[in-house]
């Protein structure tokens, strides 16, 4: 393809942000659709974060049925994982923040 699709361009923009280690898009079943990391790491992140997002969403809804999950961030010793959830897809970005 000579002309990159807009999807690729958007993902490339996110990936080129400062400190971003990896970006991936996961569908509603937890299957990764687009990724910048290697296969085994992608599958691991996709499966685990998909389940965690479902759990987080149900937590918010249980506390207040009028509320809903908009963004999920997990901070660990080494980096920060950000998950933007949606009805059909999940965008996962892993960033190594400046300490």
């Amino acid at each position, binding site marked *: 393809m000579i002309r990159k699709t807009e999807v690729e361009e958007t993902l490339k923009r*996110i990936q080129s942000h400062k*400190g971003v280690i990896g970006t991936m898009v996961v569908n509603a079943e937890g*299957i990764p659709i687009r990724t910048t990391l290697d296969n085994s790491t992608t599958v691991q992140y996709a499966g685990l974060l998909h389940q965690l997002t479902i759990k987080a969403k149900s937590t918010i809804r249980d506390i207040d049925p009028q509320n809903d999950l*908009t963004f999920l*961030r997990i*901070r660990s010793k080494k980096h920060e994982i*950000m998950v933007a959830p*949606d009805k059909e897809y999940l965008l996962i*970005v892993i960033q190594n923040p400046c300490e």
Partner: protein
Amino acid sequence: MATRLQSRPLCQAGRASAGELATGGAAGAHGPWRPGPLQDETLGLASVPSQWRGVQGVRGETSCQTASIATADAGTQGRKREDAQVQTEAPVRPAPPVPRPDEPRLLAFLRRVEPAVTRELSRNWQSHAFDGFEVTWTEPQQTVTCLHTLGYPPAQGQGLHVTSVSWNATGSVLACAYGRLDDGDWSTLKSYVCAWNLDRRGLHPQQPSAVVEVPSAVMCLAFHPTQPSQVAGGLYSGEVLLWDLSRREDPLLWRTGLTDDTHTDPVCQVVWLPEAGHSHRFRLLSVAPDGKVLLWQGGGTGPLQLREGFALAMQQLPRSARLRKPPRGETEVGATAVALSSFDPNLFILGTEGGFPLKCSLAAEEAALVRTPSSVPLRAPARFAFSPQGGPIYSVSCSPFHRNLFLSAGTDGHAHLHSALQAQPLASLRLSQQYLFAVRWSPARPLLFAVASGEGAVQLVDLQRSSQKPAVSVSQTQDGSPVYCLEFNKQQPQLLAAGDAKGTVKVWGLSTALTEQGPREMEDLDRLAAEVAPEGDGAAGCVGQV
């Protein structure tokens, strides 16, 4: 009853009337009443009605009983019986087909979330919210403690040294090899390979769970990377043996025998090499000071077969080695230590008797110059020679976190940190007045390594804290006899085993600061590896003076 003074006819007790008794009984019978002598009298009852209590409650009694409960008994028994067992199997995951995503919907989703994600990313990059914020999940251990002191009394009685220790694939069994490291002669010394299971409850420090008697001194030991009970050892006679410690009667599985192919010098180190293509099959690599590096494979019955071999000859070393003596004839270069690179399966680093590490490749093609032919064509593996140190190298170790860094330690008492890309070491630390016998990188922290010194101390150097002196130094032997070997436990990185000349193996438990990675350690390691050592005259300064 009191006595009476006058006698009277005795009247029956209880018959006298109340009135008679009240008057003393004397009035009716003996004239007008006179106060009589003291007599006993019984007065009648007088009842005083209660003024405040009303009518006493009516009391009545009834009884009741339930009708009898009907019970019935019946028995049943199944006639037919069936047994069935259920077990789950590890699911074979077929590669999931990549679904054709709906491009317009995916694009719409990305357009929706991109502003929010970008905002969070840039905000996170500048945020100082978590600076210095740390969570302690486990109880931190402050000091390095000696957890176990293990020994085998018959071997200690013969004065044998512990020449090598090794942890098995699961990290629960520790094996040690006994031999002597200060003998220069051929010896028919019998020695032992002992194994302790540290996770078992009845651990007895003087009784190993498995002991193998070996006809010759064992110089090195290596457990199989995936089979928890197979261990390979190299002997003083040049043989390489493979034992299975789970077999009680005859643990010996394979041996190379003493043929033309085997080493003619004591085997200094054996390592397991994953086979190219089949990552679950392994081969044994053995190095010895006769200049040969041999690759063995066990197959079926019979001895270990030589698959490939390499020989080091002085003339075939790369020109980059600044060797003092010009090579003459087919001088062999003795190899005394080997380390495999964790990143490149074809690369290995050899430590030599001449004091210069060599970078070698398994894929070398050039034929080696050897005096005696062998069944398998030997090749020359050396690709690059690093600058020599002051004496023979006893141990090399490749970093598990960086593809270019490795450490070497030898008789000059220095630990040299090399980058595989340049001949001069990046740093040299003087750690002992005597020899350094073993050096190992920590599997948990990128900037930590341990050395075993000839003064009987195990020293842990943390390059983050200080690159001049060790962070922790624990002395293993009381009388200063050397520590010959040490190994980290890859499954439990806080355990470090070290064996010394007294025949004891001590298992040290490291403190939390030495096992947990700090937040920026990988970056510091990369920065360290990218430094370039001073060129020119600095070369002579780095070489240790003997």
